[in-house]
Protein backbone atom coordinates (compact mmCIF):
# COMPACT_ATOMS: atom_id res chain seq x y z
CA UNK A 1 0.00 0.00 0.00
CA UNK A 2 0.86 3.63 -0.37
CA UNK A 3 4.24 5.04 0.36
CA UNK A 4 6.08 2.45 2.35
CA UNK A 5 9.48 3.87 3.06
CA UNK A 6 12.85 2.62 4.12
CA UNK A 7 14.43 4.19 7.14
CA UNK A 8 18.02 4.55 5.91
CA UNK A 9 17.42 7.28 3.30
CA UNK A 10 15.49 9.15 5.93
CA UNK A 11 18.26 8.83 8.48
CA UNK A 12 20.73 10.05 5.88
CA UNK A 13 18.45 13.05 5.32
CA UNK A 14 18.38 13.78 9.06
CA UNK A 15 22.16 13.55 9.26
CA UNK A 16 22.58 15.75 6.18
CA UNK A 17 20.15 18.33 7.58
CA UNK A 18 22.01 18.38 10.88
CA UNK A 19 25.31 18.99 9.08
CA UNK A 20 23.87 21.65 6.77
CA UNK A 21 22.33 23.48 9.72
CA UNK A 22 25.60 23.42 11.62
CA UNK A 23 27.65 24.60 8.63
CA UNK A 24 25.26 27.38 7.67
CA UNK A 25 24.98 28.62 11.25
CA UNK A 26 28.78 28.65 11.31
CA UNK A 27 28.91 30.59 8.05
CA UNK A 28 26.29 33.05 9.30
CA UNK A 29 28.27 33.59 12.49
CA UNK A 30 25.41 32.33 14.66
CA UNK A 31 27.15 29.36 16.22
CA UNK A 32 25.49 30.12 19.55
CA UNK A 33 22.19 28.94 18.03
CA UNK A 34 23.63 25.46 18.27
CA UNK A 35 23.24 25.53 22.04
CA UNK A 36 19.46 25.85 21.88
CA UNK A 37 19.31 23.39 19.00
CA UNK A 38 21.22 20.84 21.03
CA UNK A 39 18.80 21.31 23.92
CA UNK A 40 15.84 21.05 21.57
CA UNK A 41 17.12 17.74 20.18
CA UNK A 42 17.39 16.33 23.71
CA UNK A 43 13.83 17.43 24.45
CA UNK A 44 12.77 15.70 21.23
CA UNK A 45 13.91 12.41 22.77
CA UNK A 46 11.28 12.87 25.48
CA UNK A 47 8.70 13.54 22.79
CA UNK A 48 9.65 10.44 20.77
CA UNK A 49 9.35 8.34 23.90
CA UNK A 50 5.95 9.84 24.65
CA UNK A 51 4.91 9.24 21.05
CA UNK A 52 5.63 5.54 21.56
CA UNK A 53 3.44 5.49 24.65
CA UNK A 54 0.66 7.81 23.48
CA UNK A 55 0.67 7.68 19.70
CA UNK A 56 1.32 3.98 19.30
CA UNK A 57 0.07 2.32 22.49
CA UNK A 58 -2.66 4.90 23.12
CA UNK A 59 -1.77 5.47 26.77
CA UNK A 60 -1.75 9.12 27.80
CA UNK A 61 0.86 10.33 30.26
CA UNK A 62 0.71 13.76 31.86
CA UNK A 63 3.79 13.03 33.92
CA UNK A 64 6.61 13.07 31.43
CA UNK A 65 7.89 16.37 32.77
CA UNK A 66 8.20 14.63 36.13
CA UNK A 67 10.01 11.60 34.66
CA UNK A 68 12.39 13.98 32.89
CA UNK A 69 12.96 15.89 36.12
CA UNK A 70 13.57 12.76 38.19
CA UNK A 71 16.23 11.70 35.70
CA UNK A 72 17.82 15.14 35.63
CA UNK A 73 17.68 15.75 39.36
CA UNK A 74 19.05 12.30 40.18
CA UNK A 75 22.05 12.90 37.95
CA UNK A 76 22.48 16.46 39.18
CA UNK A 77 22.21 15.50 42.83
CA UNK A 78 24.53 12.51 42.67
CA UNK A 79 27.20 14.40 40.74
CA UNK A 80 27.14 17.51 42.94
CA UNK A 81 26.37 16.20 46.43
CA UNK A 82 29.63 16.22 48.32
CA UNK A 83 30.20 12.92 50.07
CA UNK A 84 33.56 13.88 51.59
CA UNK A 85 31.96 13.55 55.01
CA UNK A 86 31.20 9.90 54.32
CA UNK A 87 34.86 8.94 54.01
CA UNK A 88 35.59 6.07 56.34
CA UNK A 89 32.13 4.56 56.09
CA UNK A 90 32.32 0.99 54.78
CA UNK A 91 29.84 1.52 51.91
CA UNK A 92 31.67 4.61 50.77
CA UNK A 93 35.05 2.90 50.74
CA UNK A 94 33.54 0.04 48.81
CA UNK A 95 32.14 2.45 46.21
CA UNK A 96 35.49 4.19 46.09
CA UNK A 97 37.30 0.89 45.49
CA UNK A 98 34.90 0.14 42.65
CA UNK A 99 36.08 3.39 41.08
CA UNK A 100 32.67 5.04 40.98
CA UNK A 101 33.61 7.98 43.20
CA UNK A 102 35.23 10.97 41.55
CA UNK A 103 36.88 13.95 43.15
CA UNK A 104 37.32 17.50 41.97
CA UNK A 105 38.21 20.87 43.42
CA UNK A 106 35.33 22.88 44.79
CA UNK A 107 34.30 25.85 42.66
CA UNK A 108 34.56 28.16 45.64
CA UNK A 109 37.57 27.07 47.65
CA UNK A 110 40.34 24.52 47.62
CA UNK A 111 38.40 21.76 49.38
CA UNK A 112 37.96 18.44 47.68
CA UNK A 113 34.49 17.46 46.46
CA UNK A 114 33.77 13.73 46.29
CA UNK A 115 30.76 12.66 44.24
CA UNK A 116 29.34 9.75 42.33
CA UNK A 117 30.82 9.36 38.84
CA UNK A 118 28.53 10.96 36.23
CA UNK A 119 28.19 7.78 34.16
CA UNK A 120 26.98 5.86 37.20
CA UNK A 121 24.67 8.72 38.16
CA UNK A 122 23.22 8.52 34.65
CA UNK A 123 22.49 4.80 35.01
CA UNK A 124 21.00 5.28 38.48
CA UNK A 125 18.87 8.17 37.18
CA UNK A 126 17.39 6.05 34.40
CA UNK A 127 16.83 2.98 36.57
CA UNK A 128 15.27 4.97 39.39
CA UNK A 129 12.85 6.62 36.97
CA UNK A 130 11.93 3.27 35.45
CA UNK A 131 11.15 1.85 38.88
CA UNK A 132 9.03 4.88 39.78
CA UNK A 133 7.19 4.64 36.45
CA UNK A 134 6.45 0.99 37.17
CA UNK A 135 5.05 1.85 40.58
CA UNK A 136 2.83 4.61 39.11
CA UNK A 137 1.80 2.54 36.12
CA UNK A 138 1.10 -0.81 37.71
CA UNK A 139 -2.23 -0.04 39.37
CA UNK A 140 -3.54 2.22 36.61
CA UNK A 141 -2.57 0.09 33.61
CA UNK A 142 -4.32 -3.02 34.85
CA UNK A 143 -7.53 -1.18 34.07
CA UNK A 144 -8.81 -0.14 30.68
CA UNK A 145 -9.34 3.59 30.17
CA UNK A 146 -7.58 6.81 30.92
CA UNK A 147 -6.45 6.00 34.43
CA UNK A 148 -2.81 6.44 33.55
CA UNK A 149 -3.44 10.06 32.55
CA UNK A 150 -5.01 10.77 35.93
CA UNK A 151 -2.34 8.93 37.91
CA UNK A 152 0.53 10.63 36.09
CA UNK A 153 -1.10 14.04 36.41
CA UNK A 154 -1.29 13.64 40.18
CA UNK A 155 2.20 12.22 40.26
CA UNK A 156 3.60 15.17 38.30
CA UNK A 157 2.05 17.66 40.71
CA UNK A 158 3.55 15.82 43.68
CA UNK A 159 7.03 15.67 42.16
CA UNK A 160 6.86 19.37 41.33
CA UNK A 161 5.96 20.23 44.93
CA UNK A 162 8.73 18.00 46.28
CA UNK A 163 11.36 19.58 44.03
CA UNK A 164 10.30 23.13 44.84
CA UNK A 165 10.12 22.39 48.53
CA UNK A 166 13.33 20.43 49.11
CA UNK A 167 16.32 22.55 50.20
CA UNK A 168 18.66 19.60 49.58
CA UNK A 169 17.60 19.76 45.91
CA UNK A 170 18.05 23.51 45.78
CA UNK A 171 14.35 24.28 46.22
CA UNK A 172 13.19 26.90 43.72
CA UNK A 173 16.72 27.45 42.35
CA UNK A 174 17.33 23.82 41.49
CA UNK A 175 20.79 22.32 41.30
CA UNK A 176 23.75 24.07 39.64
CA UNK A 177 27.36 23.20 39.05
CA UNK A 178 26.65 19.82 37.44
CA UNK A 179 29.91 18.54 35.92
CA UNK A 180 30.17 17.22 32.39
CA UNK A 181 29.45 13.60 31.53
CA UNK A 182 32.40 12.10 29.70
CA UNK A 183 32.32 8.77 27.97
CA UNK A 184 35.22 7.61 25.86
CA UNK A 185 36.65 11.00 25.00
CA UNK A 186 33.26 12.60 24.34
CA UNK A 187 31.88 15.00 26.92
CA UNK A 188 28.28 16.08 27.33
CA UNK A 189 29.03 19.59 28.41
CA UNK A 190 27.78 23.11 27.78
CA UNK A 191 31.28 24.59 27.39
CA UNK A 192 31.46 26.62 24.22
CA UNK A 193 34.68 24.84 23.19
CA UNK A 194 32.73 21.60 22.72
CA UNK A 195 29.56 23.18 21.36
CA UNK A 196 29.74 21.66 17.91
CA UNK A 197 30.75 18.29 19.25
CA UNK A 198 27.78 18.35 21.64
CA UNK A 199 25.40 19.30 18.88
CA UNK A 200 26.38 16.11 17.06
CA UNK A 201 26.29 14.02 20.23
CA UNK A 202 22.69 15.09 20.75
CA UNK A 203 21.77 14.23 17.17
CA UNK A 204 23.53 10.88 17.41
CA UNK A 205 21.60 9.97 20.56
CA UNK A 206 18.30 11.16 19.09
CA UNK A 207 18.80 9.25 15.84
CA UNK A 208 19.80 6.12 17.73
CA UNK A 209 16.58 6.42 19.75
CA UNK A 210 14.64 6.95 16.54
CA UNK A 211 16.08 3.81 14.95
CA UNK A 212 15.43 1.67 18.02
CA UNK A 213 11.86 2.90 18.36
CA UNK A 214 11.21 2.46 14.64
CA UNK A 215 12.43 -1.12 14.88
CA UNK A 216 10.19 -1.61 17.86
CA UNK A 217 6.96 -0.30 16.37
CA UNK A 218 7.38 -2.44 13.28
CA UNK A 219 7.97 -5.64 15.23
CA UNK A 220 5.89 -8.24 17.02
CA UNK A 221 5.78 -6.11 20.17
CA UNK A 222 5.09 -2.93 18.21
CA UNK A 223 2.14 -4.50 16.46
CA UNK A 224 0.85 -5.69 19.81
CA UNK A 225 0.96 -2.21 21.26
CA UNK A 226 -0.65 -0.66 18.21
CA UNK A 227 -3.31 -3.35 18.57
CA UNK A 228 -3.90 -2.25 22.16
CA UNK A 229 -4.49 1.26 20.87
CA UNK A 230 -7.10 0.12 18.35
CA UNK A 231 -8.91 -2.41 20.54
CA UNK A 232 -7.63 -3.57 23.85
CA UNK A 233 -10.28 -6.29 24.10
CA UNK A 234 -9.40 -7.75 20.71
CA UNK A 235 -5.67 -7.55 21.43
CA UNK A 236 -6.14 -9.40 24.69
CA UNK A 237 -8.41 -12.00 23.08
CA UNK A 238 -5.62 -12.64 20.55
CA UNK A 239 -3.22 -13.42 23.36
CA UNK A 240 -1.48 -10.09 23.98
CA UNK A 241 -0.68 -9.66 27.67
CA UNK A 242 -2.01 -6.11 27.62
CA UNK A 243 -1.36 -4.96 31.21
CA UNK A 244 2.23 -6.18 31.06
CA UNK A 245 2.95 -4.67 27.67
CA UNK A 246 1.42 -1.31 28.59
CA UNK A 247 3.55 -1.23 31.72
CA UNK A 248 6.70 -2.12 29.83
CA UNK A 249 6.07 0.59 27.26
CA UNK A 250 5.51 3.13 30.02
CA UNK A 251 8.83 2.09 31.53
CA UNK A 252 10.63 2.47 28.21
CA UNK A 253 9.01 5.85 27.65
CA UNK A 254 9.91 7.05 31.14
CA UNK A 255 13.47 5.77 30.68
CA UNK A 256 13.85 7.91 27.56
CA UNK A 257 12.52 10.96 29.41
CA UNK A 258 14.95 10.32 32.26
CA UNK A 259 17.81 9.83 29.83
CA UNK A 260 17.09 13.18 28.19
CA UNK A 261 16.71 14.79 31.62
CA UNK A 262 20.05 13.48 32.77
CA UNK A 263 21.89 14.46 29.58
CA UNK A 264 20.37 17.94 29.65
CA UNK A 265 21.29 18.41 33.30
CA UNK A 266 24.91 17.76 32.28
CA UNK A 267 24.66 19.88 29.17
CA UNK A 268 23.07 22.82 30.99
CA UNK A 269 25.27 22.24 34.05
CA UNK A 270 22.14 22.23 36.17
CA UNK A 271 18.42 21.70 36.38
CA UNK A 272 15.50 23.59 37.90
CA UNK A 273 12.08 22.61 39.22
CA UNK A 274 10.21 24.16 36.29
CA UNK A 275 11.15 21.05 34.28
CA UNK A 276 8.69 19.05 36.33
CA UNK A 277 5.77 21.48 36.01
CA UNK A 278 2.61 20.29 34.32
CA UNK A 279 3.21 23.02 31.70
CA UNK A 280 6.14 20.92 30.54
CA UNK A 281 4.17 17.69 30.57
CA UNK A 282 1.40 19.29 28.53
CA UNK A 283 4.01 20.70 26.17
CA UNK A 284 5.37 17.23 25.45
CA UNK A 285 1.85 16.03 24.83
CA UNK A 286 1.19 18.92 22.43
CA UNK A 287 4.41 18.13 20.59
CA UNK A 288 3.45 14.48 20.17
CA UNK A 289 0.14 15.61 18.70
CA UNK A 290 1.83 18.19 16.47
CA UNK A 291 4.26 15.53 15.27
CA UNK A 292 1.37 13.36 14.15
CA UNK A 293 0.75 11.16 17.23
CA UNK A 294 2.02 7.81 15.95
CA UNK A 295 4.88 9.39 14.07
CA UNK A 296 8.39 9.19 15.44
CA UNK A 297 10.09 11.23 12.72
CA UNK A 298 7.33 13.83 13.00
CA UNK A 299 7.91 13.99 16.74
CA UNK A 300 11.63 14.51 16.23
CA UNK A 301 11.32 17.22 13.57
CA UNK A 302 8.41 19.15 15.02
CA UNK A 303 9.62 19.18 18.58
CA UNK A 304 13.17 20.11 17.65
CA UNK A 305 11.83 23.04 15.66
CA UNK A 306 9.21 24.28 18.12
CA UNK A 307 11.33 23.81 21.22
CA UNK A 308 14.19 25.60 19.51
CA UNK A 309 11.91 28.57 18.73
CA UNK A 310 10.64 28.47 22.30
CA UNK A 311 14.18 28.45 23.71
CA UNK A 312 15.13 31.33 21.41
CA UNK A 313 12.31 33.25 23.03
CA UNK A 314 10.19 33.56 19.90
CA UNK A 315 6.98 33.02 21.78
CA UNK A 316 7.88 35.59 24.43
CA UNK A 317 5.61 35.61 27.42
CA UNK A 318 3.10 33.43 25.57
CA UNK A 319 5.51 30.51 25.60
CA UNK A 320 3.29 28.05 27.45
CA UNK A 321 0.14 29.40 25.79
CA UNK A 322 1.58 28.64 22.34
CA UNK A 323 1.70 24.94 23.14
CA UNK A 324 -1.85 25.05 24.47
CA UNK A 325 -2.95 26.69 21.23
CA UNK A 326 -1.11 24.05 19.20
CA UNK A 327 -2.97 21.37 21.10
CA UNK A 328 -6.35 22.97 20.47
CA UNK A 329 -5.55 23.62 16.82
CA UNK A 330 -4.50 20.01 16.24
CA UNK A 331 -7.65 18.67 17.84
CA UNK A 332 -9.85 21.06 15.92
CA UNK A 333 -8.15 21.11 12.51
CA UNK A 334 -5.97 18.08 12.07
CA UNK A 335 -6.56 15.33 14.61
CA UNK A 336 -4.24 13.03 12.63
CA UNK A 337 -1.45 15.56 12.83
CA UNK A 338 -0.38 18.21 10.34
CA UNK A 339 1.46 15.76 8.10
CA UNK A 340 -1.65 13.78 7.28
CA UNK A 341 -3.38 17.03 6.50
CA UNK A 342 -0.59 17.94 4.11
CA UNK A 343 -0.88 14.55 2.46
CA UNK A 344 2.44 13.39 3.82
CA UNK A 345 2.36 10.02 5.48
CA UNK A 346 5.66 10.04 7.26
CA UNK A 347 5.12 7.05 9.45
CA UNK A 348 3.66 4.51 7.08
CA UNK A 349 4.82 1.27 8.59
CA UNK A 350 6.56 -1.01 6.18
CA UNK A 351 6.41 -4.73 6.82
CA UNK A 352 9.89 -5.96 7.51
CA UNK A 353 9.49 -9.02 5.36
CA UNK A 354 7.12 -9.42 2.52
CA UNK A 355 5.75 -12.85 1.85
CA UNK A 356 6.82 -14.16 -1.55
CA UNK A 357 4.11 -13.81 -4.11
CA UNK A 358 1.72 -11.12 -2.94
CA UNK A 359 4.58 -8.79 -2.14
CA UNK A 360 3.99 -6.58 -5.15
CA UNK A 361 0.34 -7.18 -6.00
CA UNK A 362 -0.93 -5.16 -3.04
CA UNK A 363 1.25 -2.15 -3.76
CA UNK A 364 -0.32 0.54 -5.86
Amino acid at each position, binding site marked *: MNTTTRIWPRLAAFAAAAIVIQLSLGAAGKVYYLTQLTMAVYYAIVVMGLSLLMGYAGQVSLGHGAFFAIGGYTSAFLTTHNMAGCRGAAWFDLLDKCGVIVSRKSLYDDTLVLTVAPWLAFIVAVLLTVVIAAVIGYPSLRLRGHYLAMATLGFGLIIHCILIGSPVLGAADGITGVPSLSVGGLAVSGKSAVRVQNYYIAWAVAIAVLVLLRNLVESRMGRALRAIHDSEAAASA*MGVNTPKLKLEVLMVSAALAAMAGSLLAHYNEGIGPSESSSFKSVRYLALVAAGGMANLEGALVVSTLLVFLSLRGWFGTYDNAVFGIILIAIVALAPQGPFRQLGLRMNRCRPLYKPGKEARSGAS
Partner: protein
Amino acid sequence: MALLEAENVRQCFGGLVALNGVSFEVRRGQIMAIIGPNGAGKTTLFNIVCGLINPTDGVVRMDGKVITGLKPFQIAALGVSRTFQNVSLFPHMTVLENVLVGRHLHGRAGLIGCALRLPTQRREEKAMVEQASRFLEEVGLAEKAQHSAGGLSLGQRRLVELARALGTEPRLLLLDEPASGLNTKETDNLAKTLRRIRDRGITLLMVEHDMSLVMDIADEILVLDFGVKIAEGPPAQVRSDPKVIAVYLGEKENVASG
Protein backbone atom coordinates in the same frame (compact mmCIF):
# COMPACT_ATOMS: atom_id res chain seq x y z
CA MET B 1 -14.23 -35.30 28.23
CA ALA B 2 -15.79 -32.41 26.35
CA LEU B 3 -13.45 -29.68 25.11
CA LEU B 4 -15.47 -26.92 26.72
CA GLU B 5 -17.95 -27.21 29.56
CA ALA B 6 -20.06 -24.42 30.97
CA GLU B 7 -21.78 -25.10 34.23
CA ASN B 8 -24.65 -23.06 35.55
CA VAL B 9 -23.34 -19.79 34.10
CA ARG B 10 -25.19 -16.76 35.37
CA GLN B 11 -24.59 -13.16 34.39
CA CYS B 12 -26.37 -10.13 35.82
CA PHE B 13 -25.90 -6.58 34.56
CA GLY B 14 -27.35 -4.56 37.40
CA GLY B 15 -30.94 -5.79 37.58
CA LEU B 16 -30.86 -7.42 34.15
CA VAL B 17 -30.26 -11.17 34.12
CA ALA B 18 -28.53 -11.76 30.78
CA LEU B 19 -27.75 -15.42 31.47
CA ASN B 20 -29.65 -17.46 33.99
CA GLY B 21 -27.86 -20.70 34.81
CA VAL B 22 -26.77 -21.95 31.40
CA SER B 23 -24.96 -25.29 31.15
CA PHE B 24 -23.68 -26.98 28.03
CA GLU B 25 -20.80 -28.92 26.57
CA VAL B 26 -18.93 -28.54 23.32
CA ARG B 27 -17.50 -31.82 22.06
CA ARG B 28 -14.23 -31.94 20.18
CA GLY B 29 -14.28 -31.70 16.44
CA GLN B 30 -17.85 -30.51 16.03
CA ILE B 31 -19.53 -27.32 14.93
CA MET B 32 -21.92 -26.17 17.59
CA ALA B 33 -24.26 -23.30 16.92
CA ILE B 34 -25.93 -21.05 19.47
CA ILE B 35 -29.14 -19.45 18.27
CA GLY B 36 -31.74 -17.32 19.94
CA PRO B 37 -33.50 -13.98 19.57
CA ASN B 38 -31.79 -10.62 20.05
CA GLY B 39 -30.73 -10.04 23.62
CA ALA B 40 -30.86 -13.73 24.48
CA GLY B 41 -27.36 -13.55 25.96
CA LYS B 42 -25.36 -15.24 23.20
CA THR B 43 -22.61 -12.63 22.97
CA THR B 44 -22.48 -12.40 26.74
CA LEU B 45 -21.84 -16.13 26.86
CA PHE B 46 -18.93 -15.71 24.40
CA ASN B 47 -17.50 -12.88 26.46
CA ILE B 48 -17.56 -15.13 29.51
CA VAL B 49 -15.92 -18.04 27.71
CA CYS B 50 -13.08 -15.90 26.39
CA GLY B 51 -12.57 -14.08 29.68
CA LEU B 52 -13.67 -10.58 28.71
CA ILE B 53 -16.22 -10.62 31.52
CA ASN B 54 -16.29 -12.58 34.73
CA PRO B 55 -19.62 -14.32 35.25
CA THR B 56 -21.70 -13.50 38.31
CA ASP B 57 -21.83 -17.22 39.00
CA GLY B 58 -20.90 -20.53 37.44
CA VAL B 59 -17.76 -21.97 35.90
CA VAL B 60 -16.37 -22.63 32.47
CA ARG B 61 -13.85 -25.42 31.93
CA MET B 62 -11.52 -26.05 29.05
CA ASP B 63 -10.16 -29.62 28.99
CA GLY B 64 -11.57 -29.98 32.48
CA LYS B 65 -9.54 -27.04 33.75
CA VAL B 66 -11.45 -24.09 35.19
CA ILE B 67 -10.84 -20.98 33.08
CA THR B 68 -13.27 -18.55 34.70
CA GLY B 69 -11.29 -15.78 36.35
CA LEU B 70 -8.45 -16.00 33.85
CA LYS B 71 -7.65 -13.00 31.64
CA PRO B 72 -8.49 -13.16 27.93
CA PHE B 73 -4.83 -13.49 26.93
CA GLN B 74 -4.41 -16.42 29.29
CA ILE B 75 -7.47 -18.13 27.87
CA ALA B 76 -6.19 -17.43 24.36
CA ALA B 77 -2.95 -19.17 25.30
CA LEU B 78 -5.02 -22.24 26.26
CA GLY B 79 -6.31 -22.42 22.71
CA VAL B 80 -9.50 -20.34 22.62
CA SER B 81 -9.85 -17.68 19.95
CA ARG B 82 -12.78 -15.64 18.71
CA THR B 83 -14.25 -13.15 16.31
CA PHE B 84 -16.54 -10.31 17.29
CA GLN B 85 -20.15 -9.56 16.35
CA ASN B 86 -19.28 -6.01 15.35
CA VAL B 87 -15.95 -6.88 13.74
CA SER B 88 -13.12 -5.72 15.96
CA LEU B 89 -10.12 -5.43 13.66
CA PHE B 90 -7.20 -3.10 14.22
CA PRO B 91 -8.20 -0.53 11.58
CA HIS B 92 -4.91 1.38 11.56
CA MET B 93 -2.94 -1.70 10.66
CA THR B 94 -2.66 -3.58 7.40
CA VAL B 95 -4.54 -6.79 6.80
CA LEU B 96 -1.33 -8.77 7.16
CA GLU B 97 -0.43 -6.98 10.38
CA ASN B 98 -3.83 -7.86 11.81
CA VAL B 99 -3.20 -11.53 11.18
CA LEU B 100 0.33 -11.11 12.57
CA VAL B 101 -1.20 -9.98 15.86
CA GLY B 102 -3.02 -13.30 15.81
CA ARG B 103 0.43 -14.94 15.61
CA HIS B 104 1.59 -13.01 18.69
CA LEU B 105 1.24 -16.01 20.99
CA HIS B 106 3.60 -18.02 18.82
CA GLY B 107 6.44 -15.50 18.95
CA ARG B 108 8.86 -14.79 21.73
CA ALA B 109 10.78 -11.64 20.74
CA GLY B 110 10.60 -9.11 23.58
CA LEU B 111 10.74 -5.31 23.56
CA ILE B 112 14.52 -5.19 23.63
CA GLY B 113 15.02 -7.90 21.04
CA CYS B 114 12.56 -6.08 18.79
CA ALA B 115 14.18 -2.66 19.27
CA LEU B 116 17.65 -4.04 18.52
CA ARG B 117 16.30 -6.19 15.69
CA LEU B 118 18.38 -9.12 16.85
CA PRO B 119 18.99 -11.99 14.41
CA THR B 120 16.61 -14.28 16.31
CA GLN B 121 13.92 -11.63 16.07
CA ARG B 122 14.49 -11.21 12.32
CA ARG B 123 14.20 -14.94 11.75
CA GLU B 124 11.07 -15.12 13.86
CA GLU B 125 9.53 -12.17 12.06
CA LYS B 126 10.20 -13.70 8.69
CA ALA B 127 8.62 -17.00 9.71
CA MET B 128 5.64 -15.17 11.21
CA VAL B 129 4.97 -13.28 8.00
CA GLU B 130 5.03 -16.55 6.02
CA GLN B 131 2.63 -18.20 8.45
CA ALA B 132 0.30 -15.22 8.59
CA SER B 133 0.10 -15.10 4.80
CA ARG B 134 -0.90 -18.75 4.76
CA PHE B 135 -3.85 -17.97 7.01
CA LEU B 136 -4.81 -15.10 4.72
CA GLU B 137 -4.65 -17.46 1.76
CA GLU B 138 -6.88 -19.88 3.59
CA VAL B 139 -9.67 -17.29 3.77
CA GLY B 140 -8.93 -16.11 0.24
CA LEU B 141 -7.58 -12.65 1.03
CA ALA B 142 -3.91 -13.05 0.19
CA GLU B 143 -3.98 -10.24 -2.36
CA LYS B 144 -5.24 -7.78 0.27
CA ALA B 145 -2.27 -8.37 2.60
CA GLN B 146 -0.87 -4.85 2.33
CA HIS B 147 -4.21 -3.04 2.37
CA SER B 148 -5.38 -1.07 5.35
CA ALA B 149 -7.78 -3.20 7.38
CA GLY B 150 -10.09 -0.26 7.96
CA GLY B 151 -10.78 0.15 4.25
CA LEU B 152 -12.21 -3.30 3.43
CA SER B 153 -15.85 -4.29 2.93
CA LEU B 154 -17.69 -5.83 5.86
CA GLY B 155 -17.48 -9.31 4.35
CA GLN B 156 -13.74 -8.97 3.84
CA ARG B 157 -13.24 -7.61 7.33
CA ARG B 158 -15.07 -10.62 8.76
CA LEU B 159 -12.70 -12.85 6.81
CA VAL B 160 -9.63 -10.99 8.07
CA GLU B 161 -10.94 -11.40 11.58
CA LEU B 162 -11.37 -15.11 10.90
CA ALA B 163 -7.80 -15.35 9.61
CA ARG B 164 -6.53 -13.45 12.64
CA ALA B 165 -8.37 -15.85 14.97
CA LEU B 166 -7.05 -18.86 13.04
CA GLY B 167 -3.58 -17.35 13.35
CA THR B 168 -3.58 -18.12 17.06
CA GLU B 169 -3.97 -21.81 16.10
CA PRO B 170 -6.93 -22.29 18.41
CA ARG B 171 -8.45 -25.57 19.45
CA LEU B 172 -11.76 -23.85 20.07
CA LEU B 173 -12.88 -21.02 17.79
CA LEU B 174 -15.79 -18.79 18.80
CA LEU B 175 -17.52 -17.03 15.91
CA ASP B 176 -20.05 -14.33 16.73
CA GLU B 177 -22.43 -13.98 13.77
CA PRO B 178 -19.80 -14.66 11.09
CA ALA B 179 -22.37 -14.45 8.26
CA SER B 180 -24.12 -11.23 9.19
CA GLY B 181 -23.66 -8.65 6.47
CA LEU B 182 -22.49 -11.24 3.94
CA ASN B 183 -24.25 -11.86 0.62
CA THR B 184 -25.37 -15.33 -0.44
CA LYS B 185 -22.22 -16.14 -2.32
CA GLU B 186 -20.00 -15.01 0.54
CA THR B 187 -22.11 -17.06 2.95
CA ASP B 188 -21.71 -20.16 0.80
CA ASN B 189 -17.96 -19.67 0.77
CA LEU B 190 -17.99 -19.15 4.51
CA ALA B 191 -19.82 -22.45 5.02
CA LYS B 192 -17.14 -24.22 2.99
CA THR B 193 -14.36 -22.51 4.91
CA LEU B 194 -15.90 -23.36 8.27
CA ARG B 195 -16.31 -27.02 7.34
CA ARG B 196 -12.71 -27.11 6.20
CA ILE B 197 -11.62 -25.58 9.51
CA ARG B 198 -13.62 -28.17 11.43
CA ASP B 199 -12.12 -30.97 9.35
CA ARG B 200 -8.68 -29.72 10.33
CA GLY B 201 -9.62 -30.55 13.90
CA ILE B 202 -10.65 -27.14 15.19
CA THR B 203 -13.81 -27.16 17.26
CA LEU B 204 -16.24 -24.37 16.38
CA LEU B 205 -18.78 -22.63 18.56
CA MET B 206 -20.80 -20.19 16.50
CA VAL B 207 -23.55 -17.68 17.16
CA GLU B 208 -25.56 -17.16 14.01
CA HIS B 209 -28.92 -15.79 12.95
CA ASP B 210 -28.81 -17.20 9.42
CA MET B 211 -30.87 -20.33 9.97
CA SER B 212 -30.11 -21.99 6.67
CA LEU B 213 -26.38 -21.70 7.37
CA VAL B 214 -26.85 -23.05 10.89
CA MET B 215 -29.01 -25.97 9.78
CA ASP B 216 -26.54 -26.64 7.00
CA ILE B 217 -23.28 -26.86 8.93
CA ALA B 218 -24.02 -27.30 12.64
CA ASP B 219 -23.61 -30.70 14.25
CA GLU B 220 -25.30 -29.50 17.39
CA ILE B 221 -27.51 -26.51 18.19
CA LEU B 222 -28.12 -24.75 21.47
CA VAL B 223 -31.11 -22.42 21.74
CA LEU B 224 -31.07 -19.54 24.20
CA ASP B 225 -34.02 -17.36 25.08
CA PHE B 226 -33.83 -14.61 27.69
CA GLY B 227 -30.70 -16.10 29.18
CA VAL B 228 -32.15 -19.60 29.51
CA LYS B 229 -31.32 -22.70 27.50
CA ILE B 230 -34.58 -23.89 25.98
CA ALA B 231 -33.34 -26.61 23.66
CA GLU B 232 -30.22 -28.46 22.64
CA GLY B 233 -29.56 -31.19 20.12
CA PRO B 234 -28.87 -31.97 16.48
CA PRO B 235 -30.48 -29.66 13.86
CA ALA B 236 -33.31 -32.02 12.95
CA GLN B 237 -34.37 -32.35 16.55
CA VAL B 238 -34.11 -28.65 17.38
CA ARG B 239 -36.02 -27.67 14.26
CA SER B 240 -39.06 -29.64 15.32
CA ASP B 241 -38.92 -28.66 18.98
CA PRO B 242 -42.20 -26.93 19.88
CA LYS B 243 -40.48 -24.53 22.31
CA VAL B 244 -38.08 -23.39 19.61
CA ILE B 245 -40.91 -22.95 17.14
CA ALA B 246 -42.77 -20.88 19.70
CA VAL B 247 -39.78 -18.57 20.20
CA TYR B 248 -39.27 -18.23 16.47
CA LEU B 249 -43.00 -17.82 15.75
CA GLY B 250 -42.42 -14.81 13.56
CA GLU B 251 -39.63 -16.55 11.71
CA LYS B 252 -41.27 -19.99 11.66
CA GLU B 253 -40.94 -20.55 7.95
CA ASN B 254 -37.28 -19.59 8.32
CA VAL B 255 -36.60 -22.37 10.78
CA ALA B 256 -38.67 -24.87 8.84
CA SER B 257 -37.12 -24.12 5.50
CA GLY B 258 -33.52 -24.53 6.76
